[in-house]
């Protein structure tokens, strides 16, 4: 078959285009080319870690206008163990997983485990406890839900604490529901409520202010420890972070961080 010149040129162009495409698809990658996140981090000398900017005591603005908290200390420890610098990136609940997937951050802190999330990110072992507990002054003896009978309990309306304590509290427990944590804390510190149900983060924030009535944890209602997360498939980075975590648990630095920021030592089996 003999083609005219113009048709031959057109066919050659099509062939060139098609083969480039084929080669590109077979050998290239969809997205920025990256061999392995861990290698990239070591080469760049910087690890980008996403943290919340207002989530005390994990991260909050200090009086000297710098971000400080459990997560900040954790990020610094991770960077030191990797031999790189830590770059803290502020994230929100909405954008953190997209940031991770797009490579804007290498790892996330303060992320709780869920099956839906596990489909898009890889979790490491937990690095910080996060739980909801019934808290009250030393003198009141409460060991379990049954002891809530006849007590006044302050709780933030509509939160997980509210639904959980409503589920387990006996019928004659007086559950006071306030609009926000300020109401709950005011009620507890003024003695209007004998007990309160809050997360350990709120408990730590109160303890840090050295209040007149010190909240002591009575019993846990729900626990969902904070994990670190890396982009799906980055097993190298995931394993390295887990190794660093084991090291920190062994040398006690993780426990020191917990005592410093959460005012409670880590549980023995953490």
């Amino acid at each position: 078959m003999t083609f005219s010149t113009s048709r031959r040129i057109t066919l050659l162009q099509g062939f060139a285009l098609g083969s480039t495409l084929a080669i590109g698809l077979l050998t290239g990658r969809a997205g920025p080319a990256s061999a392995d996140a861990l290698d990239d981090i070591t080469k760049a000398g910087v690890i980008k870690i996403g943290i919340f900017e207002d989530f005390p005591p994990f991260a909050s603005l200090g009086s000297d206008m710098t971000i400080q908290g459990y997560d900040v200390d954790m990020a610094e420890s991770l960077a030191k163990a990797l031999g790189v610098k830590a770059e803290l990136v502020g994230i929100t609940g909405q954008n953190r997983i997209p940031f991770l997937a797009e490579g804007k951050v290498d790892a996330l802190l303060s992320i709780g485990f869920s099956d839906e999330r596990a489909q898009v990110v890889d979790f490491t072992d937990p690095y910080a406890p996060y739980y909801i507990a019934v808290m009250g002054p030393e003198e009141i003896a409460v060991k379990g839900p049954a002891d809530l009978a006849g007590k006044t309990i302050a709780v933030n309306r509509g939160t997980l604490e509210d639904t959980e304590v409503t589920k387990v509290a006996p019928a004659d427990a007086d559950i006071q529901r306030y609009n926000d944590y300020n109401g709950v804390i005011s009620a507890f510190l003024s003695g209007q409520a004998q007990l309160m149900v809050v997360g350990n983060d709120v408990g730590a924030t109160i303890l840090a202010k050295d209040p007149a009535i010190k909240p002591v944890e009575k019993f846990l209602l729900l626990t969902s420890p904070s994990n670190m997360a890396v982009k799906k498939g980055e097993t190298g980075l995931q394993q390295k972070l887990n190794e660093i975590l084991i090291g920190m648990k062994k040398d006690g630095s993780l426990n020191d961080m917990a005592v410093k920021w959460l005012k409670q030592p880590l549980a023995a089996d953490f």
Partner: protein
Amino acid sequence: MGYELDFSALAGYLGLFLRGAGVTLGLTAIAATFGIALSIGGAATARWGLGWARALVIAYVELIRNTPFLVQLFFIFFGLPALGIKMTAMQAAILAMTINLTAYAIEIVRAGIESVPPGQREAGIALGLKPVKVFIYVVLPQALANVYPALVSQIIITMLESAVVSQVAVMDLTHVADYIQSRTYRAFETYFIIALAYLAMAVGLRWLMTRAGSRLFAGRSR
């Protein structure tokens, strides 16, 4: 609009809803009774009292009228325990509402007293009645008849303001609304129903008190 109205989600909460309405009406009734009674004494003191007593009443009225009700409530409920005075949320709510209503009612009743011609009081004294009796039997009925609509309005305002006590976890109508909303996530339906409930209670209360007024003050030129 992607929101679908679903009023049936609220159906199971009827009992709670009625209880909340009952608490609101109960609080209003107690606050109104004590408030009006105290305000009559307060108005008389402001009008004819000794120098220090008058100053006290005026200071009290100015303080309450120029600060927000929510702040007054929070002070009583969260602040007083620091001074050793601790009371339940319900007691704090009644106290705050009474104090609030009394302050505004004192001004209203005082205006009523001043609207009664001075000749009435002079005539009463000239007939040999003791000043206190003149006040109770001659001046006060006329004063109240003159300002009755304003007093009714103030009581209605107090009932609507009582929504604020939901902030200290008193199970009034608004607190029930917040609770239902936090369980069903149906903010539009919940607050729509609650607004209608307050509207119905206000209109009903006003009608009731106006009817009572025309009986109480029968025969007055109005």
